[in-house]
Each structure stands twice: as C-alpha cells, then as structure tokens.
C-alpha cells in the first residue's frame, strides 16, 4: 500500500501541494481529477520520487521511501507526450527497461511479446516510433511501463494527445491490462467523463489540495462541497442562488417547488442550488414540472448529445439533451426542471442535500 501522509510541496513562496493524505491499495485503480494546474503532475512527481516533498511522508507498505532515488523505487510513468527512443525499434523500446535491469534473454523476450500482444503491437516490432501512428506510439510507451512490472504505475493524461476514438478504445483496455500486474495504478486526467469511465477511486484536486477521495461514482453522486462538485462535472453544474422560505425553494421569484425529503429540516435562508445539465429538459414531463425562461447562447453537438448553453435570468446554464438538437442563438426557449434533482449547498459550500435519484451508487 502506498501512503501519502500530510504531503506538502513548497517552491519558493508558493505552495504547490498542501497537506495531501491519500492511501492507494495494491492492484487498485486511482484517478487524480482536476483542471490544468490543479497539481496532478506535481503530485505524481512526488510519488515517483522525481521531487521531494517539503513536508509530510510517503510510505510504501509502511516504509518511508523519501530516501530512495527514483531508480530504486520501481515506478513506471507514462506521459501525455509520446516518449520513446526514436532510434530503437518498437521491440527494443519495450525491452529497454529490462535491458537496463539485465533480465535474461528468454525471460525478456517472453515479457516483450506478452506486453505487445496485450497492446496489439506485435505487427510493428521492427518499426521505429516515427513510423507509427500516435496511438501506436503511446501503446509502445505503455508497453514499456507494463514490462517493468513496477509496483506503482503513474499515467499522466496518457490519452490526451490521441484521437477520441482511440482514446475510447485505450481507456477501456488500460485498467484491464494493468489490473493483472497487481500494480497500484494512478491515472491523472482533466476530464470527469474519463474518470467515470475508468471507475475505481478518485481524488479530486483543486489548487494543490485534495478536496475529496472516494469511490469515483460516489464522489460524482455525493460531492462533499461545491468545489468538488464543480471539478467533477463536465459540462459544469448549473448553479443558482436560492432562498428557502417555509420549505419552498425560491429562485428569482420563481418557486422551484417544495421538496419533501430532508429539505424540510433545513432552516430558512440562502443556499446554493445545483442541477446537472442532463437533468434539465426541453420538454415538460411528469418530473420536469418547473418551467424556466431561457435565452439560447450557442449549442454544441457531440454526436449523440447536444449541449445547449443558455442564460437563465443572468445565470449561465447548460442543458444537455440526447440526440441532435438545433437551437438558434438568441432564441427564447422554455426549459424544465425536476425540483427533486437539485443539490443544495450551504453558505460555506458544504453539501446539504442530494437528489433522491442518487441511490447508493455502488
């Protein structure tokens, strides 16, 4: 088990990492989720031993590894850029960590072939990285990390530079490939969707702090605070300042209705309501009963879904609908909200209420 205990990293006057405590089990898949500059790479460099924390401790199976150099740590890392030796063939690129470790020849060959089979690189053994597509180059880098049989595998946005179709395929394969090795897998990404597809456990990062660490779907369903909720929502959560009065939620003089569950225990006052883009609807349904007037900004079509950016009394919201919808910019439309799908946060941005559709999730 890898443990980070109150890890901090200060460079000059800047805190790059503050009080991070995490525990990663062997054979587990862990996601570091956060926007660019949230500290994902810094954290990975600390775990790899490329940088030393300025406070706290990092322990492997109870033993501090701070004194160990990178070479003695048994760590493999894959970067966003495709890093291979351009002068070596694919075979030699994959074999290189074992050549350094002086693994005997039959063992080496066996492992290279095994890794190449898993990553579908067998036909390209004799090519050099420059003769490969981006996806194949990244597979080669991943295969090299795989044959190292490292205890800790760090993947720093490994799919960010690939076409989305390749990304889809590799994203499914990666956890499966590494699961068999029993390594601790840590995967950094900026995309909430990717974290969800990977599953496992997630640590959400914001400005060098871990805001929550739990099962991925659990954080998605029950973010501790508004910050985490926003980190874990793409497109962003739709937020509204609301007031609670006599158990009624009011938003800009519109009643969002009475919510019957635990809201009834909340005192009157100001709260932040949040609703996920896909819980808004363009049609009134049995659940979507509250009508709000919106002005369309633009719409984005991803293929199977459409994101409609709207202005709802000054709030920038996004409506996510299935299929392809064309809505003209500037058009006034009605959107419908299911009051039951509201998250509520208090003045300190802590979570107070989750929608009733959120079941256990696990």
């Amino acid at each position, binding site marked *: 088990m890898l443990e980070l205990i109150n890890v901090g*990293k200060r*460079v000059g006057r800047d805190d*790059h990492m503050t009080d991070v405590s995490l525990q990663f089990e062997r054979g587990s898949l862990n996601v570091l989720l956060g926007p660019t500059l949230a500290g994902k*790479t*810094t954290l990975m*460099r600390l775990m790899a031993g*490329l*940088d030393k924390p300025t406070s706290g401790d990092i322990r492997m199976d109870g033993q501090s590894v701070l004194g160990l150099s990178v070479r003695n740590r048994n760590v493999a890392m894959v970067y966003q850029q495709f890093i291979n030796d351009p002068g070596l063939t694919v075979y030699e690129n994959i074999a290189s960590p074992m050549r350094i470790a002086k693994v005997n020849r039959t063992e080496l060959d066996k492992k290279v072939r095994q890794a190449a089979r898993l990553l579908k690189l067998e036909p390209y053994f004799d090519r050099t990285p420059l003769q490969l597509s981006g996806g194949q180059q990244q597979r080669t880098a991943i295969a090299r990390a795989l044959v190292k049989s490292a205890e800790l595998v760090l993947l720093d946005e490994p799919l960010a530079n690939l076409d989305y179709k390749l990304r889809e395929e590799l994203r499914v394969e990666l956890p499966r490939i590494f699961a068999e090795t029993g390594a601790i897998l840590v995967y950094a990404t900026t995309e909430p969707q990717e974290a969800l597809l990977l599953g496992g456990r997630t640590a959400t990062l914001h400005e060098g702090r871990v805001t929550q660490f739990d099962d991925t779907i659990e954080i998605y369903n029950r973010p501790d605070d508004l910050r985490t909720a926003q980190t874990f929502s793409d497109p962003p959560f739709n937020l509204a300042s609301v007031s609670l009065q006599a158990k009624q939620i009011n938003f800009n003089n519109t009643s969002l209705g009475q919510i019957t569950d635990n809201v009834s225990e909340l005192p009157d006052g100001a709260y932040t309501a949040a609703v996920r883009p896909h819980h808004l609807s363009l049609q009134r349904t049995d659940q979507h009963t509250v009508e709000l007037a919106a002005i369309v900004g633009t719409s984005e079509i991803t293929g199977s879904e459409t994101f409609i950016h709207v202005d709802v009394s000054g709030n920038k919201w996004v409506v996510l609908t299935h299929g392809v919808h064309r809505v003209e910019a500037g058009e006034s439309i009605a959107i419908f909200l299911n009051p039951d799908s509201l998250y509520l946060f208090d003045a300190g941005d802590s979570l107070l209420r989750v929608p009733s559709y959120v079941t256990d999730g696990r």
Partner: protein
Amino acid sequence: MTTKTVNQKAWFLVLPVLLIVALNAIIPLMTVVNYSVQDTFSPGVFFFEGTKWYKEVLSSPRFHGALGRQFLFTAIILAIEIPLGVLVALAMPRKGPWVSVCLVLMALPLLIPWNVVGAMWNIFALPDIGLLGYGLNWLGFDYNYTQQPVSAWMTVVLMDVWHWTSLVVLLAYAGLSSIPDAYYQAAKIDGASAFAVFRYIQLPKMKRVLIIALLLRFMDSFMVYTEPFVLTGGGPGNSTTFLSIDLVKAAIGEFNLGIAAAMSILYFLMTLLVCWVFYTAMMRGEDS
C-alpha cells in the same frame, strides 16, 4: 505544473569545463597581463612598470593607425558578407537534390586552411601571372596589390568575402529552413509581396542566427591575421597592417613584449566590449 529541482551536485558536472577553460584561456591571459605591466632586458629579469605600456600604446599614432584600419576592414566586410550571405541563402533551393550540392559547394571555402587561402589569393592576384591580377590589367585597370594600397585593400576584402560569406550563408540557410511552410502559404494568401515575405517572415525568423553570424564574423575579422599576412604581409607600407599584424610585429619583429602584451589586452577588451554592445543591442526587445 513542472517544478525545477534544486540540486547542487550539478556544479560538479561543470567542473571539467571550468578546468579546461582555465588552462587554455585564463592562465595564458593572466601571463599576458603579467607581461603588460613589466619590462624586461634579458630573460628572467623583470621590472614592474605599472601602466607605462598602456599609456605608450594608447598615445602611439601607429596603434591608432592599425586600429582605424582594423575597424574599416571589419566594417567593410560585414557590410558585404552579411547581406550577400542572406541573399545567397534566399536564392538557394529549399528542397530537392540540389540542396546538398549547394551546401557542399558553400562549405568548400571554409574547409581550406587559412594560410592556403592567403597563398591562393597571393598567386591569383599577381598582376603578371595571376588570373585576377592579369585579367584586371588586361581590362585596363591599373591593378597591383603589392604596390598600390587601394589594390591591396580590394584584394584583402575580396579574399575575406570569398572565404567567409559561406559561413553567413550556411547560418542564414539554417534559419530559413526552420520556417514552416504554413508561413509562406499564409503570406501568399495575405497577398504579401516577396519583399514583405522577407521583411516580416524570413528576416524575423533569421534574426537569431544572423546575430550569431554577425558576432562570429565580427570577432574573426577583427582578429584577422593569417590571410592578409600571407597575401600582403601588411603592405604596401603599412596600408594593410591590421591590429593583429601590428601586434605580431611588435612582439616578434621588435621584441617589445610589454607593448605587445598591453596591445593584446586592449585588443581583447575591445573585442569583448563590441561583442557585448552588439549582442545587447540586437537582443533588445526580443522578449518584451
């Protein structure tokens, strides 16, 4: 987010270089400094003279003359070689089989030993048998570099241009090659003239290499010795006696070690100063 690792061990890696630089630059330089403040009459006997040699050198008309000739020479060859080098680089093909042919042709003059260059031009320019000298006279020009200062200057300049323009060409060509095709396409689409392409795309992208070319050519020409020495020996009269030739005359011909050493130090400081001024001036505004 990348953070630079603070690691003092790296300094050990620089140590060998420091040692080499110390051995081949700093120690000899200090020896020269030592000479420049002393006088000697016989080997091993030295007297401390302070700044006497420096005062003498700085007030000597001979030094002023050599310095003036030196600056004139450098100014002329820079004014010719830099634009000419850029023009040749622009005219060279960017793709195809001729690229390597051109590059080899361009590199040829750079591969010839310097004294051979001097000797070649010495013969080439002889007014009675040399192709250039004879040819010019046949065309009706009164040309004789061993007797007329103007002919001698022309020959020295021509020789330097022939010898060193290639360096500017190669550097400028490297700069040009680094410009992506998209820039040329965009310029075409914007309706830019060939001059505008040069002014707004090629020149800015060549700027860095041209600064290097300028510095190299400045330093080399400022210290030029071998070729004019072999060609004219500094003559006729003192007309092509540049600083370095004057320096050698003082040190070896006249055995004025103190004078020569003081000249060397002044010479070195001037080169350093001019290079620094050049560099800062040209790099100004680069990162603002």
